[in-house]
C-alpha cells in the first residue's frame, strides 16, 4: 500500500514538474503567454512540493514502521536500528537520497513561487500593463515563470529518475522479515542527521541561481533586480553548503577516528568545488552590481556552480571515483552524465547566443581598485576550483589513458592549497579597504597603515613566542592584517552613523546590519573565515600524537594531558556489539573525567567502526582512539591519543560564517522603499535592449523582502 502511495506521489510530482516547465516557458517565452499561464506555473510548483511531501512522508512512515515490502526499506532498514537512525537513513543510500533531493528541489520551487505570489496583482494594482500589446507578458514579469520553468525542467530529470531507474518505492514480494540496516558508518553518530541535509539544501539550492541565469539568458536581460534576487538565493544556498561542509568535517572528526576533519577525499572535494565557484560569484556579483561589468562571467559562474553540484553528485554516487570501470555499472550513472551534458551544452549555446546582448558597458579603470581586487579574487577561486578538480579527476584520467593506477591525496592537495588559501586570506584584507574605480597613493597609505602594522606585529609576536614555521607565521600575520581591515570598516561605518544619526555605539552597529546587511554580513563571514584559517593552521601545526599500549593503571602523557587505562568492557546492543575501553584523563595533573573510545561492530557488517572519544575545550581537544586491546585477559589496551590544539574554532568559525550569511539575506523592511525606488530609476534610466519592449515600471512592493516580512 505504502509502495503504491509513494510511487503515486512521485508520478504526481513528475506531472507537476511538467506543468511548471510547460506553462512557465509559455508564460516567459511565448507571445501567447499570459497571466493565466504564469499563475498555473506557480501553482504547479506548490502542487509539486505537496506531492513530494507526500512521497517523503510515505517513505518515512515505511521506514519507521519497518515496512519491508517497500524496496528501499528492505535495503536500508532493520528492526534493530534505533528510530533516529532509521528516520535519517532516508539519505543513506542512492535512491533515498534522490527522493530527498527531489523533495528539496520541489521545496525551493514552491518557496520561490511563494515569494513572487503577489507580483502580478501588485503590477495590476499599480496600474501597469501585465500583457504587452505585441503579445506575451511584459518583460518584468517574465523572470518568475521562466525560473519556475527551469527548475521544473531539472525536476523532470530527478522525478523521472525516481519514477524509473531509481525508484525507492518498488514492491518487494514476499516482503522480507528484516533488513540489513543502513551502512554502519552512517548510523554511528547523531551528527549524521545534521550535515547531509545541510549539504543537500546547499547543493539543490544552487538550482535557483542557475534558473535565474538561464532565465536571464533567455530574456537577454540581467538587470539590477535580477542580480539582487538571484544573489540572495545564492547566499542562502551558499550558507547551507558552508555549514554542510564544516558539519561534514565535524562528523568526520567525531566518527572516523584519525583525528582530523578534512582529508581531501573525493566526496569532500565534490562539496568543496561548487562552494568555491559560488564564493567567486558572491564577490564578482558586486562588480556587476556597482559597475555593470562581468555579466557573462557571473552567469557562467552560476551555471558552473550548478554543474559542479551535479558533477560532484555523479562522481561520488556512481562509484566512478573508485575506478573508471565502475562507470559501466547501473543505468543511473550514464543518465546523470547525459543530464550534465545536456545542461552544459544548452547553457553554452545560450551564452553564445546572448553574449553580445550582455556586453558590459563598464571598464576597469585601475589595477588598484576594489573591482580589480574582486577580479583577482575570482582568478584565485576559479584557479582553486580547477586545481581541486584536476587533483580529484587526475587518477581517473591516468587510469583511462595509461591504464595505470595512481593516487592524488592529501599531501598533494595540502601543498597546492596552502599558497592559494594564503593568497585569498591576504586579499581579504586588501579588497574591502580599496575604493571602487581607482585608489590614490594617499588613500592606500591611509587604508593600509593599521592593517599592515597589525600584520607585522602579529608575525613578530608569534615569532617571539617561539613559532618558527613559515606557513603558520604567514597565516597569523595575514589573519591579523585582514581582521584589522574588517575592524576599520566597522569603525568607519559606526563612526559615520553616530555622527549622522546621533546613535549610541551599539545602535550604530545594529544600524549597519539593518541598513546594509549584505555588506556587513559579508564582513561577519570574513571574520568566520579568519577564525577557520587560524584553526586550520594551529591545529595542523601543533597537533601531537602518541600511541601507547597501557596496562591497567598505567599512564601516557601527551602535551599537558595524561591518559590512564582503567578497563576494557563489552556490551551487546540491539543493532551492534560495543567494545569500549575506559580511560581516566588528566590535564596538568587535574582529573578531567572518564573517556570511553569504542569499537562498534554492527550486525550487518563484520568491520568494527572505531568511535573515538573526544574531550573538547576552547584551547585544545584530547582525542582518544582505541586501537587494540587484550581480548583474553583484558589486561592491556593500545590507545592513540591525539592533542588537537584549537580545532574547536573550526566549528565556531563555520558557525560565524553561517551567521554572517544569515545577516546578509535577512529580509529587511527598511530597505524596501529604497529598493523599490532604485528599481524604478534604474529601469527608467536603463536603455532597453530593443525598442519594441515597453519600458518596465516595476511595481513597487513585489520584492522578496516585501513578501517575507
Amino acid at each position, binding site marked *: 500500500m505504502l509502495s503504491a502511495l509513494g510511487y503515486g506521489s512521485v508520478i504526481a510530482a513528475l506531472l507537476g514538474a511538467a506543468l511548471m516547465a510547460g506553462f512557465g516557458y509559455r508564460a516567459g517565452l511565448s507571445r501567447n503567454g499570459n497571466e493565466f499561464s504564469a499563475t498555473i506555473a506557480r501553482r504547479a510548483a506548490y502542487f509539486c512540493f505537496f506531492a513530494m511531501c507526500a512521497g517523503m512522508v510515505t517513505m518515512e512512515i515505511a521506514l519507521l514502521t519497518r515496512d519491508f515490502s517497500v524496496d528501499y526499506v528492505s535495503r536500508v532498514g532493520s528492526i534493530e536500528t534505533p528510530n533516529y537512525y532509521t528516520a535519517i537513513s532516508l539519505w543513506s543510500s542512492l535512491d533515498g537520497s534522490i527522493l530527498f533531493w527531489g523533495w528539496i528541489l520541489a521545496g525551493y520551487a514552491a518557496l520561490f513561487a511563494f515569494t513572487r505570489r503577489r507580483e502580478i496583482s501588485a503590477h495590476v494594482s499599480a496600474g501597469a500593463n501585465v500583457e504587452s500589446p505585441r503579445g506575451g507578458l511584459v518583460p518584468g514579469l517574465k523572470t518568475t515563470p521562466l525560473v519556475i520553468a527551469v527548475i521544473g525542467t531539472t525536476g523532470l530529470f530527478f522525478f523521472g529518475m525516481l519514477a524509473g531507474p531509481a525508484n525507492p518505492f518498488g514492491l518487494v514480494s514476499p516482503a522480507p522479515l528484516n533488513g540489513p540496516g543502513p551502512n554502519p558508518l552512517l548510523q554511528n553518530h547523531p551528527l549524521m542527521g545534521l550535515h547531509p541535509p545541510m549539504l543537500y539544501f546547499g547543493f539543490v539550492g544552487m538550482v535557483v541561481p542557475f534558473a535565474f541565469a538561464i532565465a536571464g539568458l533567455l530574456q537577454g536581460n540581467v538587470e539590477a533586480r535580477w542580480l539582487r534576487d538571484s544573489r540572495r538565493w545564492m547566499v542562502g544556498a551558499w550558507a547551507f553548503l558552508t555549514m554542510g561542509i564544516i558539519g561534514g568535517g565535524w562528523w568526520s572528526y567525531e566518527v572516523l577516528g584519525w*583525528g582530523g576533519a578534512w582529508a581531501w577525499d573525493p566526496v569532500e572535494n565534490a562539496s568543496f568545488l561548487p562552494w568555491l565557484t559560488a564564493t567567486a560569484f558572491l564577490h564578482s556579483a558586486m562588480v556587476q552590481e556597482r559597475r*555593470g561589468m562581468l555579466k557573462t562571467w557571473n552567469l557562467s559562474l552560476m551555471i558552473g556552480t550548478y554543474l559542479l553540484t551535479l558533477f560532484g553528485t555523479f562522481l561520488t554516487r556512481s562509484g566512478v571515483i573508485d575506478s573508471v570501470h565502475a562507470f559501466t555499472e547501473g543505468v543511473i550513472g550514464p543518465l546523470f552524465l547525459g543530464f550534465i551534458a545536456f545542461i552544459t551544452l544548452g547553457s553554452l549555446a545560450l551564452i553564445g547566443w546572448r553574449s553580445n546582448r550582455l556586453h558590459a558597458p563598464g571598464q576597469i579603470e585601475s589595477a588598484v581598485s576594489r573591482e580589480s581586487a574582486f577580479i583577482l579574487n575570482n582568478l584565485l577561486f576559479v584557479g582553486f576550483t580547477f586545481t581541486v578538480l584536476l587533483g580529484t579527476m587526475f587518477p581517473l584520467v591516468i587510469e583511462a589513458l595509461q591504464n595505470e593506477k595512481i593516487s*592524488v591525496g592529501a599531501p598533494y592537495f595540502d601543498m597546492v592549497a596552502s599558497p592559494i588559501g594564503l593568497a585569498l586570506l591576504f586579499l581579504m584584507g586588501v579588497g574591502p579597504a580599496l575604493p*571602487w574605480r581607482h585608489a590614490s597613493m594617499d588613500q592606500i597609505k591611509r587604508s593600509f597603515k593599521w592593517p599592515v602594522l597589525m600584520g607585522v606585529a602579529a608575525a613578530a609576536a608569534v615569532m617571539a613566542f617561539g613559532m618558527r614555521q613559515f606557513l603558520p607565521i604567514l597565516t597569523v600575520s595575514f589573519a591579523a592584517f585582514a581582521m584589522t581591515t574588517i575592524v576599520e570598516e566597522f569603525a568607519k561605518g559606526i563612526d*559615520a552613523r553616530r555622527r*549622522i544619526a546621533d546613535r549610541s555605539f551599539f545602535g550604530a552597529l545594529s544600524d*549597519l546590519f539593518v541598513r546594509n546587511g549584505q555588506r556587513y554580513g559579508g564582513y561577519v563571514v570574513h571574520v568566520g573565515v579568519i577564525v577557520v584559517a587560524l584553526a586550520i593552521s594551529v591545529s595542523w601545526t601543533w597537533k601531537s600524537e602518541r600511541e601507547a599500549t597501557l596496562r591497567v593503571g598505567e599512564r601516557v602523557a601527551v602535551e599537558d594531558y595524561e591518559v590512564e587505562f582503567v578497563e576494557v568492557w563489552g556490551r551487546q546492543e540491539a543493532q551492534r556489539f560495543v567494545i569500549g575501553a575506559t580511560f581516566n584523563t588528566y590535564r596538568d595533573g587535574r582529573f578531567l573525567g572518564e573517556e570511553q573510545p569504542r569499537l562498534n561492530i554492527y550486525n550487518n557488517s563484520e568491520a568494527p567502526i572505531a568511535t573515538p572519544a573526544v574531550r573538547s575545550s576552547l584551547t585544545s581537544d584530547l582525542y582518544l582512539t582505541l586501537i*587494540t586491546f587484550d581480548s583474553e585477559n583484558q589486561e592491556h589496551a593500545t590507545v592513540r591519543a591525539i592533542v588537537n590544539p584549537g580545532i574547536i574554532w573550526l566549528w565556531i568559525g563555520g558557525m560565524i560564517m553561517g551567521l554572517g550569511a544569515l545577516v546578509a539575506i535577512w529580509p529587511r523592511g527598511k530597505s524596501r522603499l529604497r529598493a523599490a525606488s532604485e528599481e524604478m530609476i534604474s529601469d527608467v534610466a536603463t536603455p532597453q535592449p530593443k525598442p519594441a519592449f515597453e519600458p518596465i515600471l516595476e511595481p513597487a512592493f513585489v520584492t522578496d523582502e516585501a513578501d517575507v516580512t
Partner: protein
Amino acid sequence: MKICSRALAVSIALIGIATLDLDSARAQGAEDPNQAQPSQQEMPGPAAAELDAMVAEIGATLRCPVCRQQSVAESSARISREMQGIIRSMLIDGKTPEEIEAYFVESYGPWILLRPKAEGANLFVYLGPLGAFLLGGLLLAVRLRKTGREIAAAEATPERNPDTAANRDSAADHVGEEDRDWLDAALRGS
C-alpha cells in the same frame, strides 16, 4: 571521508578469534612484512621520538592499501601498522626516505604514493594549476593594460575622470555612499 572497513575487520578480528600477542611482536625487518612490528614503548628516549616523527612523516605520504584515501600514518588498520613497522625498521637500518618509498612502490605500484611522482604524465597535475594561474593572470594583465590605455585617452572626459569618482568613496559620509552610488550608476545607465 574515510572508510577503512576491511582493514579494521582484520585488525580487530578479536572477538575471540585472533589473539594479539603484543609481547612477542618483534621487528622482522623489511623482508617479512607479515609480522607485527614493535610498538614505540620498547624504545624510549629522545631518539625514539625523532624516529616516530620520521615514521609519521613518511607514513603520511603512503596510502593505506585497504582504506579510502587514508594515509598509513593516520590509519589504524593492521596493514598500515605493519607498514609503519617496516618504515621504522628500514629507518633503523639506515635506509633513506627515498629508498623506503621505492620499496613500497615496488611492492604496491605507484598507486601507494599519495603525492604522485613528478614525472611523465604526472607532471600535468603539478604544472596544470601553475599554468592555469599564469594564463589567467596574464589575460587579466593584458586586459587591464588595454583598458588602462583607453582610460588615459578618455581622461579628458569629466565623468570618466577617475579621481572624482574615487574621491567620492572616501567622502566622510560612509553610509550614504551606497545611496549615491546607485544613483550614479543609474544616471550612467550601467
